[in-house]
């Protein structure tokens, strides 16, 4: 396949995200600017300008009406996707590392870093929407809930909403994963999933399980209710990001050892790779080369037909899968499908 290379960012990428229909890709980087692109051909719709510090995170609501960004300039901004204008700004005492709309679109969570004497927290902001047009009409200024970093845990780096926004799942700098009641903020559960900081948490399409990626070179799939470790994927380099592919039963991992961190790595140009593993069998099934630096973020189209990766090299690459990707099946999968087919005929 021929990836589409987007060269609009001057600094490393921090996050890439698809909207619900998968026709738009939102990218943000340390260069203070976020961009919106059409995924089918890489044409840029526009840029979101206004932040004065690195943008760490971006998310878009399910109506592709508004998108939200969290930045190192201590603010969370909400933008109109159609015209790129800022519709609201929330100020925070510290840099904001992650933002995400709730599945219903009425809440935004923001992960505040634990720096500068601030213990770190997850803030939840509320927005009010018009019942018919779904447009946001009001922004509630004060966060409706502030979840402070739990005792015995280091600050959270990433967080997300589970099914129907019931729980908030957070990944921490010490490799722990914790769960909170989204309505009351009550701490429910915590588990030591990794040995080093967690770089990314992404949910399955129905949000009932999620994958965590860590610098300790492993990625795990955990169940939301029980926090049981369902699957483990081992890589040979520290991981920054992981994603679960809809449609096919795969997961994609991204990471890479920065050249400056290693003394005996051979010069690998264009060789930082996205790794594909089979979700159930935990085996590595392929890699995609192309980035010139570690992959910082990966997102998969909700339709499962393409994926996008953003790297430390400042490039974003959109890959549309070819037929061979969709045809790939393990022997047992083929056998199971054949069996089901026979049963349907009978």
């Amino acid at each position, binding site marked *: 396949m021929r990836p589409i*290379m987007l060269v609009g960012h001057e600094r490393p990428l921090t996050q890439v995200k698809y909207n619900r229909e998968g026709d738009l890709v939102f990218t943000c980087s340390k260069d203070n600017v976020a961009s919106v692109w059409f995924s089918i*051909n890489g044409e840029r719709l526009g840029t*979101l300008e206004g932040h004065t510090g690195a943008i760490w995170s971006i998310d878009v609501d399910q109506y592709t009406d508004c998108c939200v960004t969290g930045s190192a300039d201590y603010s969370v901004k909400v933008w109109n996707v159609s015209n*790129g204008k800022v519709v609201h700004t929330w100020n925070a005492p510290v840099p904001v590392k992650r933002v995400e709309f709730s599945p219903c679109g009425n809440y935004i969570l923001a992960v505040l870093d634990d720096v500068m004497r601030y213990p770190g927290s997850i803030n939840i902001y509320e927005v009010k929407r018009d019942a018919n047009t779904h447009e946001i009409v009001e922004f509630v200024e004060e966060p409706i809930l502030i979840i402070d970093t739990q005792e015995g845990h280091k600050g959270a780096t990433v967080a997300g909403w589970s099914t129907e926004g019931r729980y908030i799942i957070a990944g921490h700098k010490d490799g722990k994963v914790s769960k909170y009641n989204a309505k009351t903020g009550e701490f429910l559960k915590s588990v030591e999933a990794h040995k080093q900081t967690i770089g990314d948490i992404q949910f399955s399409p129905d949000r009932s399980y999620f994958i965590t990626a860590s610098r300790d070179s492993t990625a795990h799939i955990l169940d939301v209710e029980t926090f049981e470790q369902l699957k483990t994927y081992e890589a040979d380099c520290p991981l920054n990001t992981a994603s679960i592919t809809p449609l096919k039963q795969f997961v994609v991992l991204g990471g890479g050892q920065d050249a400056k961190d290693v003394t005996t790595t051979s010069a690998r140009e264009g060789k930082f790779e996205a790794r594909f593993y089979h979700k159930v069998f935990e085996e590595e099934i392929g890699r995609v080369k192309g980035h010139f630096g570690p992959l910082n973020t990966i997102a998969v189209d909700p339709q499962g037909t393409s994926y996008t990766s953003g790297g430390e090299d400042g490039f974003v690459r959109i890959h549309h899968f070819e037929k061979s990707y969709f045809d*790939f099946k393990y022997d047992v999968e083929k056998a199971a499908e054949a069996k089901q087919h026979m049963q349907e005929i009978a």
Partner: protein
Amino acid sequence: MSTNTGEVTKNSDGTKTVISYRTENGQKFKVTQKIREVKVTEQVPKVVADRKKWAKYGEEKNSPPGPNQATTQLGEEVYLRLSRNWKLLEEEELEKSKTKSEGGITCRTCGNAHYTMSCPFKSIMSDLAALEAGNAVPEAGEEEAGAAAASTDGGIIAGKYVPPSRRAGTKDPSSNAYRDSREHDDMCTIKITQLNENADENVLREELLFPFGNIPRVVVVRNRETGRSRGLAFVTLSSEEVAEQAIRLLNGRGFMNLILNVEWSKPRVVE
């Protein structure tokens, strides 16, 4: 630079040919373009189609429709070959491309490393020739000279000297006959380059080569005058299989702050 559009002719297979003339820097160019127009219809949800109509903003304000060259580029072709033995397949591909490019001589018909001149599978031919002439080495020498002169006029690169052992029509050096009549050791010897200066024979034996069993010989190539290592070593192992294993495991591995380069000491042992 001025452009004059010439004719537009419709071809029988549905394409159209556009001929135009262009003058640039005093030179006149005739530009012939064969164009096939294909209409691609894609069905998308209404909201997706609506979004396509949105006006561009920010950096893209006042941009024309369509991707901007400055920000959007088509990357090089990358292959996602999904398979359970993905790693093995990758390594095989790498080996293939390495041996192909290193040889310099590749047959156009079969892709192996010999001169093309009426292939097929020249090695088979030279194998047979080698077996027949295996007992009489001096005779083979004469045959080579004669054969070389007669059949390889096309294969010899003009003006470049090719040693008799590498000319077309000679015995394939890696064939079985060759192995019997030459030293067995050469088959089991590997060449290690990119070696740290401070690595001497003992260090190699104890710290790098210990998993490979009893090692008959380790030689570090040294500068004649100063006695310093030249970063090159030849290691003879107990068998060809062990040597192959050693190459596989050691090539590209870090040792004393350098990345080792490990290969066969003789070129193209396996064909």
